[in-house]
């Protein structure tokens, strides 16, 4: 294809621009539309099968259902799982609004498991509370959401554009005013003028290279390449907890969940090669991952998800869930190897590293209104730093972002879009076409992500992280020389720039936090102890604001204190001694919780 001139472009105008039509993005669109906003929802795949739930979800990991658990239980559990470094106000929103969200989703037609008394069949996987709610028909979740988005009364307010990928958020005087991107099929240049922007672009799942060496064989949907992290960063937003990597225990090679959350309630559990249990709680945390890694590296490895002791009927039930929802090719994988849950336990390993606040804590810094540090810019879902937020948290924060972004947009002006930023984004998108014989994306990406494995995988050290930074610096130049010939290749090339940005952020944040914390997620071999005196703080990262730093400015890190807790955490004493404050009260809360 030819490089289109900047003047030849498709222009959109909207109140609320949403980048990403996955879990958080669809909910944000529904709420913003209900608030009267004109919404533009951009999705680089197709909204019907996009994001982390592309094929469905087997259950809710974090529903606080009245009578089964309390918001206080949940907030305390998540605080403990994050070694105390959380803004409890953000988690409290997920805790208090989650049940309303389950009911809203039921209203749309999503089915959740209920017992014989028609009560939600909540299961216990976390350390103390019960928040896991199976979705036996979870394969339909995207179908239901898409149908809701296409309903007549919503359709008039929500424009969906599939196969359009933004690469940069535009800002004027520090406020988000739109975005620039392109059509990944036609290559057409696209600009959007918006009153407010919501980034809901998912995890950075394509950061580490899976052990298989297959670029797209990642735990997360590989379309989620850290687009949102990079866009928020370049727009000037702060990111937080980037050093708290996502690493998960998965089916070896298949690289999908095993999945203890599904199998636990049926009697399945994780064992070492001697057949002994070695974790006392199957809830995914950095601590659990450290225990998994220790076992794998010992003479007691490998480790397995043990199901073979269960009766046939139970295994049929487990297969019914695991092989039809979320990752339905799990059955194909086992069949190909000639393995059967009835006779053979499932070999597990640890995943490549990624950034994902849905599972750990790496994300764009947001408050309880989903607002980033850039006015008019909101973030929700896996890419927003609300620790362990999972699917319900993504829905809740999509809803919150939709509400607050539409409110912001209602009184925001629509300044002329900044020509210099449009020019820079145009260059970023189409650069590979000007030297089509440059190294192709698969080779460049493989090399970049191999360096991520070599230098960023825990245990981390200053020497390795520094070598990593050096490698990512070299990769900047190689990425600038990457060649492409088609719009599809341009999409993959732009994604490689996002991955590189995330790799640099991961290295810099990991270097800055000179202690070990969150088990395996931030294990520093050269700083093996947790240092509460100096590091009971959030570590944030942003583009330098030094004069003239611009788009190529250095990354800088800063710390923020942990806000006073609003929920007491039994068995945990804040090392900084900051006293708790009362939890907020409001109409929303009393409506559900009385």
């Amino acid at each position: 294809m030819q490089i289109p001139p900047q003047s030849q472009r498709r222009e959109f105008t909207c109140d609320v621009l949403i980048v990403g039509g996955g879990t958080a993005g669809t909910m944000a669109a529904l709420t913003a539309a209900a608030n009267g906003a004109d919404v533009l929802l951009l999705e680089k795949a197709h909204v019907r099968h996009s994001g982390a739930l592309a094929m469905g979800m087997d259950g809710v990991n974090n529903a606080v259902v009245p009578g089964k658990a309390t918001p206080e239980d949940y907030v305390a559990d998540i605080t403990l799982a994050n070694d105390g470094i959380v803004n409890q106000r953000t988690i409290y929103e997920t805790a208090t609004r989650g049940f309303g969200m389950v009911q809203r989703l039921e209203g749309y037609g999503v089915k959740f498991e209920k017992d014989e008394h028609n009560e939600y069949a909540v299961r216990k996987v976390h350390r103390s509370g019960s928040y896991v709610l199976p979705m036996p028909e979870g394969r339909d979740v995207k179908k239901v959401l898409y149908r809701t988005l296409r309903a007549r009364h919503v359709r008039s307010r929500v424009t969906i554009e599939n196969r359009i990928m933004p690469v940069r958020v535009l800002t004027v005087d520090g406020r988000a005013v739109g975005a620039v991107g392109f059509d990944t099929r036609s290559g057409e240049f696209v600009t959007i003028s918006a009153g407010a922007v919501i980034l809901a672009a998912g995890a950075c799942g394509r950061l580490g290279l899976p052990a298989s060496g297959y670029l797209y064989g990642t735990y997360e949907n590989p379309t989620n390449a850290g687009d949102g992290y990079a866009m928020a960063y370049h727009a000037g937003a702060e990111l937080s907890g980037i050093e708290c990597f996502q690493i998960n225990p998965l089916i070896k090679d298949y690289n999908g969940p095993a999945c203890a959350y599904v199998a636990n309630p049926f009697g399945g559990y994780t064992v070492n090669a001697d057949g002994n249990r070695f974790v006392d709680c199957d809830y995914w945390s950095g601590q659990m991952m450290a225990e998994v890694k220790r076992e794998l590296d010992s003479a007691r490895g490998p480790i397995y998800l043990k199901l073979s002791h269960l009766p046939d009927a139970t295994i049929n039930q487990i297969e019914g869930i695991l092989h039809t929802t979320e990752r339905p090719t799990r059955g194909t994988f086992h069949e190909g190897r000639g393995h059967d849950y009835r006779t053979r336990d499932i070999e597990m390993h640890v995943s490549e590293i990624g950034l994902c606040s849905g599972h750990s804590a790496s994300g764009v810094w947001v408050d309880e209104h989903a607002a980033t540090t850039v006015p008019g810019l909101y973030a929700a879902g896996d890419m927003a730093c609300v620790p362990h937020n999972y699917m319900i948290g993504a829905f809740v924060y999509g809803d919150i972002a939709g509400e607050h972004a539409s409110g912001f947009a209602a009184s925001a002006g629509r300044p002329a879009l900044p020509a210099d930023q449009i020019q820079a984004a145009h260059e970023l998108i189409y650069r590979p076409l000007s030297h089509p014989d440059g190294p192709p994306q698969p080779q460049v990406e493989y090399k970049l992500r191999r360096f991520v494995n070599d230098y960023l995988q825990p245990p981390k050290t200053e020497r390795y992280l520094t070598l990593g930074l050096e490698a990512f610096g070299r990769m900047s130049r190689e990425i600038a020389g990457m060649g492409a010939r088609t719009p599809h290749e341009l999409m993959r090339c732009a994604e490689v720039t996002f991955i590189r940005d995330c790799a640099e952020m991961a290295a810099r944040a990991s270097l800055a936090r000179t202690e070990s914390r969150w088990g395996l997620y931030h294990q520093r071999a050269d700083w093996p102890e947790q240092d509460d005196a100096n590091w009971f703080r959030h570590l944030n990262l942003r583009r330098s604001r030094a004069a003239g730093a611009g788009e190529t400015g250095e990354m800088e890190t800063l710390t923020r204190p942990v806000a006073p807790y609003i929920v007491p955490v039994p068995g945990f004493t804040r090392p900084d001694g900051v006293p708790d404050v009362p939890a907020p009260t409001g109409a929303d809360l009393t409506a559900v919780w009385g």
Partner: protein
Amino acid sequence: MAQASNRVDVPVTIDESKCIDGCTLCVDMCPLDSLAIHPETGKAYMHVDECWYCGPCAARCPVDAVTVDIPFLLR
């Protein structure tokens, strides 16, 4: 730069005898946009080896023409 063309084993295969002319459902649904309609045959095919073995292509095909295998490196 010298160009080489390497043959790869792709995970998604289409039974061309079943694939309906003019239908683009699998192409529309693939999150990675890895499927396309071949300009000569008019049938769907995997144009790049980029696959999350997630399955919407097979699930949405009205005539069961799409098979998703596990990518060779993982199989």
